[in-house]
């Protein structure tokens, strides 16, 4: 177990709360009609994002999915710019062009949120390959869901990453469901990722995705392995989304007992208990929560008061020259 000082623990707690409150408010804004289109919240899965982000070096790369608010935020993307993107404002991190499913901040090495299942696994491997060719020492971390383990790109990326011994950590956030269908209905094995690892010459690593210390520890080990040049890891983090798959989905297809059981294992509540049992005063933890809440409200105000994107930007940034001309 990587030994952690109190400061690190408080950072992890703060990170999870920032993500939690960000998502909670995002959901409210969606129901208000201020966030349009769709959202896929990471509520309940914060420990995975927080544990890995805390263990990564600043120039390590994150590749995530449409369920990527947590990951992008915790790599350090400015909250106003993320909220601005969700509200489709010119202050948005992608200028409003990406929306909830495509949050990206390359300045923080948050290399994109990908909305088509599986596509970003080979992309993450490619970025890791470039790191080896260029000798940058970077590691790619690629987050995806349980359902993603059944698409071809998963198989192709895992095989190639291992054969080329690339510095990439594949993290399957197993939240037990695809959209509305349980993963158990569509795989013949128990663990969608871990039980496939041997097909790629890897050992299946399973971690309690609701225990941020455990995630932090696995992150350290797998990142270190990658940096030592020993190639990829495939981590399966067992977790659960508190809400539905997306938008206003109430998630009614999930048995009540299952939901209760998992809500009782809320990664943030669990961690608060652990921290208090270690003698950290609740008042301090409360202040962290209040600060996070204040930060989110400030980000919302900033986004609400921002303008819509300039109509002229419709035709910008198709090409590297900034424009969109297809003829001459």
């Amino acid at each position, binding site marked *: 177990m990587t030994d952690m000082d109190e400061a690190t623990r408080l950072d992890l707690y703060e990170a999870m709360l920032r993500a939690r409150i960000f998502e909670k408010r995002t959901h409210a804004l969606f129901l208000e009609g201020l966030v349009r289109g769709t959202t896929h919240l990471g509520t309940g899965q914060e420990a995975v994002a927080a544990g890995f982000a805390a263990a990564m070096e600043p120039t390590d790369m994150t590749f995530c999915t449409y369920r990527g608010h947590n990951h992008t935020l915790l790599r350090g993307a400015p909250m106003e710019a993320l909220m601005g993107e969700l509200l489709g404002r010119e202050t948005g991190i992608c200028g409003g062009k990406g929306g909830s*499913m*495509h949050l990206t901040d390359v300045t923080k090495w948050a290399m994109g949120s990908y909305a088509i299942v599986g596509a970003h696994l080979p992309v993450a491997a490619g970025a890791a390959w470039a790191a080896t060719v260029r000798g940058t020492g970077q590691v790619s971390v690629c987050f995806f869901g349980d359902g993603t383990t059944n698409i071809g790109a998963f198989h192709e990326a895992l095989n190639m990453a291992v054969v080329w011994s690339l510095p990439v950590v594949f993290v399957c956030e197993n939240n037990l469901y695809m959209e509305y269908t349980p993963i158990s209905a569509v795989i013949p094995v128990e663990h969608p990722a871990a039980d496939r690892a041997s097909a790629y010459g890897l050992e299946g690593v399973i971690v309690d995705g609701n225990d941020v210390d455990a995630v932090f520890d696995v992150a350290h080990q797998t990142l270190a392995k990658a940096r030592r040049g020993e190639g990829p890891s495939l981590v399966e983090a067992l977790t659960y989304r508190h809400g539905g798959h997306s938008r206003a989905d109430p998630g009614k297809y999930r048995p009540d007992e299952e939901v209760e059981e998992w809500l009782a294992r809320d990664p943030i509540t669990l961690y608060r208990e652990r921290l208090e049992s270690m003698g950290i005063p609740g008042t301090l933890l409360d202040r962290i929560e209040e600060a996070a809440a204040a930060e989110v409200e400030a980000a919302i105000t900033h986004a609400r008061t921002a303008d819509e*994107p300039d109509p002229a930007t419709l035709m910008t940034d198709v090409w590297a020259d900034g424009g969109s001309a*297809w003829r001459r």
Partner: protein
Amino acid sequence: MAEMSYREAVARGIAQEMERDPAVVMIGEDVAAAGGVFKTTEGLQERFGPDRVRDTPISEEAITGMVMGAAMNGLRPIGELMFSDFLATCWDIVANQIAKTRYMTGGQVTLPLVLRTANGGGARFGGQHSQSLENWAMAIPGLKVAAPATPIDVVGLMAAAVRDDDPVIFFEHKKLFAAKGEVPDGEIVGTLGEAAIRVRGDDVTIVALAAMVPVALEAADTLRREHGISATVIDLRTLVPLDTTAVLEGVAATGRLVTVEENPRLCGWGAEISSIVAEEAMWDLDAPVLRVTTPHIPLPATANLEDLAIPSADRVVEAVLAWS
């Protein structure tokens, strides 16, 4: 005669065919127990059972490949791709296998299958969940292409697609799911390759598809009321077979043609129609053929930009007035 939404019409059309023919089955992601993420297949599993209406893993190559194999062995399967954008994840199966196998085997293999998919923009979903891809399918020899604009056409074309012995890519437009229309009771069976003249006029012919049909109709209305220009509006309904007769008659009658495409400009279906008219009816034209399309860009997520990108009635009106 009942009012029904475009969304409900999808399930109605599928149910009509499953009722009629036990060889009709349907698979896709979340289509069975959950009734589809757009609720277009609600009630079908309860009604026809888990063997005929079945959920799949997230494996589009498997979904489409299995639909192809099932069609080779006596079924008339329907496969759903949740969003048309995902056609790209199984394009080899669709464009190289399903489309070409009959021809390459000298006619030995018949593939009576339908691939249904939610298509189009306007939902603020961003560049990877908003594309209008009818032209992708139109460009592939061996695929038929349907894209209904009304609830009654959803039912009729679904029936025609299921009964057709060739592969049909069936585009259901997200923006139209909530649209309502009258749908008579009893069996409804449409025809692939028959455009619908939605309005007749003398001055200009406007050709549209799917969600662009209401846009064209709104434009025609404005043109009539505000500019005294009377337009014929043709809803193509299917791109393959293509009702060139209707288009050429429209051009002959009005001497003007404007196409309204939701897809980005280059190589869209409107280009094909424009080239057919340029080749076969140039002497009928009193003005250049104009295409109103989404610019050649990916679709942005945010509302004000997406609304600028997708053709609006105003842009169609402008195009018509450009040569009046």
